[in-house]
């Protein structure tokens, strides 16, 4: 964020939103991330900003028939079509800042 802000000339901008993409198959709990962010930015140049989180579904691909499916823990993450083990993950491992909304002062 600091690097990005310096490029934009930090003193001349106000960050409104930091938009995150968090996959369902990561070790991140969105509520905890929001709470931590809100505590961390208190009194800083990001104090008035908020984070939004777009949850990216956990999606796998059946290695037998190539169908996409949503792996479930209850089913051992196996494909419902062929009951195959989860080999390929299509999405759900994302952990990134997608975009930043800001205004120029």
């Amino acid at each position, binding site marked *: 964020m600091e690097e990005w802000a310096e490029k934009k000339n930090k003193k001349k901008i106000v960050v409104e939103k930091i*938009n*995150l993409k968090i996959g369902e198959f990561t070790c991140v709990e969105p509520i905890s991330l929001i709470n931590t962010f809100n505590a961390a930015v208190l009194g800083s140049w990001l104090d008035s900003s908020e984070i939004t989180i777009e949850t990216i579904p956990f999606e796998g691909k059946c290695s037998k028939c190539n169908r996409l499916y949503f792996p479930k*823990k209850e089913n*051992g*993450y196996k494909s419902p079509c062929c009951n195959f083990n989860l080999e390929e993950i299509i999405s759900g491992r994302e952990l990134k800042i997608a975009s930043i909304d800001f*205004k120029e002062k």
Partner: protein
Amino acid sequence: MHLPISDKIELNILHQNSHQAEKNKIKFNNYNLLCLNIMSSPGAGKTRLLEITLEDLSKKFHSAVLEGDMTTNLDAARLEKLNIPVVPITTGRACHLDANMVSGGLKLLEKKINPNLLDILLVENVGNLVCPAEFEIGEHFKVALLSITEGEDKPLKYPIMFREADLILITKVDLLPHLNFDINELKSNIASTNPKADVIEISSITKSGFHLWQDWISKKILKFKNN
């Protein structure tokens, strides 16, 4: 004030850690030094595994350990008795090692020994099945331990740890006759989460399976050195 502008970033939140991990890996490669990241829940037997492993391994390969622990140097003190270079990394309140900590540990190791003389660096991570799975440290392979006293369902409950692992060691298998534990169910849960992982059953009491684990390491070192 002007109208809001949206700037596309698409940057990994752990970008800084990943960047440092890449730098660590380049260093390991330049030293021709294979690095394993050893992870598990607390008490699964990581330190005991290293004690037994290093007794034999250090006869064939020059080995060193970075020993991650939250608040003490107890594990490092155990491993120092093996007369190999050991660097303790005390993480304080952090529940995992990150790439910066490992970089710092490597710098301390460089003061103890020229890493060019080493073949393998074993990094014992902090006991935790969640965060260590997300933080690359520059390792070449991840090894996850799972003791049978933890239950058959752990690969399903902590899928990312077991998904990320290249090798899963099922530990404490000497306890099998005393527990109501279905090892086939555990293996099935491992396969569901990570069908590509190697799996070895071991016991630090009977030493069963240790030859397979030692073979696994030896092959990885030799392949790495030949590349």
